[in-house]
């Protein structure tokens, strides 16, 4: 397996389907044509398995194409350099990408969702200028440094320390500690870091939110091998890493609430793409399953029940997008919580079902297609990787606590 697609050194603006955005039908056709021109027909075969570096190179290449057509950040508001696309447009994009089985820009999720959501609401003008442009103009990769080995579900008990000091006349935070479960941390240029700035405050209260350069001295990144056999996540060791004081997001010791309020909705947006891809996948399942498992009444009924659940998550995502439209700076809404919990449970149940009805074919070891989201053409890998939704970013258990306590008002345990 080789990967000979050249990574363009500079991005020239190409003809964009956005030129047709006034007419939704025309936009769809233009986008379809753009995808056909841009995405190599054989990318799935070529990116089946392969090294981490090949994956990263292809991701950068794909992101370059999206940037060149101004599609990468088209969901951002116009005032922040995006296109402020409507819900209908975004559905078109996800639908066309999913139908064409185009690559998914997995490595840029934090760059495209978490980073802007955080900076829109809490960043300084200088931070927005530097870092949003960095994504759009340089294709910078961001990762997230929240979890620690002893602060998983109980994120607020994190122990990574950031001490404010003046070194050679510069105001910096000196950071020590260990982070884990950073998606694509090994390819990241920048890091959204939560660290403790006040040791005396209780739990959430003494935590601050930083922008950290992943190339700063003292940063060591080690990939974590997952149960799928691949390494999508990384551990990050921080040894006297200096962060310039201007890279603090919001006020000192207020990082926790910033991180919490901006992230719930962003998870919903990532699920937007994931669930639209799943909806298209249901159509493919029908094509493939017609001659085999779909002939079994019981399995077809189970599949239909999964379809109902999938439909409900799609509709909840639409509801959340309307909420965001009404209030772009909303915090974590109830809807976002339902989407996270419901999608995680669905994704695992759907993949478990497909694994189960696919018989021995799904039991063979074979390379998974990379950059294909949760549809790697390898049932077992898809099933196993569903844990990245049920465990991380607030495990199912944490989400159920949130529903019970914050939404239903049941007393804390």
């Amino acid at each position: 397996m080789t990967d000979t697609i050249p990574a363009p050194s500079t991005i020239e603006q190409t003809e964009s389907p956005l030129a047709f955005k006034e007419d939704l039908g025309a936009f769809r056709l233009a986008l379809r044509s753009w995808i056909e021109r841009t995405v190599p027909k054989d990318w799935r075969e070529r990116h089946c398995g392969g090294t981490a570096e090949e994956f990263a190179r292809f991701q950068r290449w794909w992101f370059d194409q999206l940037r060149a057509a101004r599609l990468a950040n088209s969901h951002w508001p116009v005032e922040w350099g995006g296109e402020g696309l409507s819900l209908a447009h975004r559905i078109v994009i996800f639908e066309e990408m999913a139908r064409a089985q185009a690559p998914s820009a997995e490595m840029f999720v934090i760059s495209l969702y978490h980073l802007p959501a955080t900076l829109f609401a809490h960043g300084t003008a200088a931070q927005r200028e530097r870092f949003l442009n960095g994504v759009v103009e340089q294709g910078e990769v961001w990762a997230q440094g929240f979890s620690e080995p002893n602060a998983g579900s109980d994120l607020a008990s994190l122990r990574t320390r950031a001490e404010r000091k003046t070194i050679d006349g510069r105001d910096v935070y000196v950071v020590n500690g260990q982070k884990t479960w950073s998606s694509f941390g090994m390819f990241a240029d920048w890091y959204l870091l939560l660290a403790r700035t006040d040791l005396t405050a209780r739990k959430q209260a003494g935590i601050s939110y930083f922008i950290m350069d992943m190339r700063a001295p003292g940063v060591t990144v080690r990939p974590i091998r997952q149960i799928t056999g691949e390494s999508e996540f990384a551990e990050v060791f921080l040894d006297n890493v200096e962060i310039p004081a201007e890279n603090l997001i919001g006020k000192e010791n207020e990082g926790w609430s910033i991180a919490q309020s901006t992230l719930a909705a962003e998870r919903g947006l990532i699920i937007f793409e994931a669930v639209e891809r799943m909806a298209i996948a249901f159509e493919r399942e029908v094509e493939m399953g017609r001659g085999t498992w779909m002939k079994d009444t019981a399995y077809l009924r189970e599949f239909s029940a999964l379809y109902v659940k999938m439909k409900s998550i799609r509709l909840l995502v639409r509801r959340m997008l309307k909420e965001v439209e009404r209030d772009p700076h909303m915090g974590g809404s109830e809807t976002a919580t339902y989407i996270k919990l419901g999608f995680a449970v669905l994704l695992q149940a759907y993949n478990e079902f497909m694994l189960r009805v696919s018989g021995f074919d799904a039991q063979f070891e074979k390379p998974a297609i990379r950059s294909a989201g949760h549809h790697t053409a390898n049932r077992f890998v898809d099933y196993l990787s569903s844990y990245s939704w049920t465990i991380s970013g607030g495990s199912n258990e944490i989400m159920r606590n949130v529903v019970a306590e914050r939404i239903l008002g049941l007393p804390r345990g």
Partner: protein
Amino acid sequence: MDENELAMLGDSVREVLQSECPHDMVLRHVDGEDLREPLWRTVKDLGWTALSAGEEYGGLGLGPDALALLYRELGTALAPVPLLPTLIASELLYRFGNAEQRSEWLGGIAAGERRVALMQMGATPLRLVRSGSSVKLYGTAEHVLELKGADLALVLARSDEGETARVMIHLQEDGVVAFEQPLVDVTRSFGKLRLDALQLPAGRVLGGPQLEHAIACHGTLAIAADSTGGADTILALTVEYLKTREQFGRLIGSFQALKHRCADHKMALVAAEAILDDAVSSTAADQEAWPDLSAAKVAASEAYAALAQDAVQLHGGIGFTWEHVCHLFLKRAKLNQSLFGSTGWHLDQIGRQLAA
């Protein structure tokens, strides 16, 4: 109706039911103090019987969004009011009746003067024999919804040639024999009609397969909406109980296993509501929008049944008593699962559509 009008309608329905049909009155209804007839008078006086008829027949011509809202509130109140088949009949006549049929029945129905019972979809049809300007019906009509106290009944019939039709029976005049078939859920009622070789004018026949589809759509939407209302209410009652009941020196609502069960129920309910809202919109836009309705009914009635079953368990002993309202939700939820197509049947509809 726009959102504001809908919200106003919802508020008014809710207020009426809170005053005319609070849960303690339903509990007394269960013990024999009839609430059915008083409620019928209320809905008639308020014009709810006219919701789905056209304005030329004194109706309000409201769409599925208003109906869903009404049915949700009826589910919340566990209202033992025989409104559903009357509203279905009203829609059928308005959409599919000829001019004579409309003028004969629609005004009286919209005015609440004539209450209609409806034979369930999927029940064994009567035998229909046409001869000139009259038809004859043979057999027994089972599973006629809200027959008790009704003036008319829309029964399902099939000819030997395979024609499926609905036939309107005038219960007082036609001399048929009606039997009540009381349900475990006494907030609804079933009956059967024996009408061997009953001769009727041909004008009593409403024909066409689209009729059954329309009945299925309206009924499915109604039961899905009823289920979300019921589920929401019994969940709220259960959560309230968990916040006040103590065992082992703690509020039982603080036990995580119970909390997680409540969270899963809430999740299922929210999912069902999302599908129902969407199904209502698509039905408003396109009355053939079928799989959405099946999905809504599956999601809503399954969420309701699971929740109502667990609600009794979460209430413990008190939920097992006749005096507590829990069992009324459970019984209505279990009936909802089978009314207008069981969950298995609806999943098969979805499956067929997906596999098509």
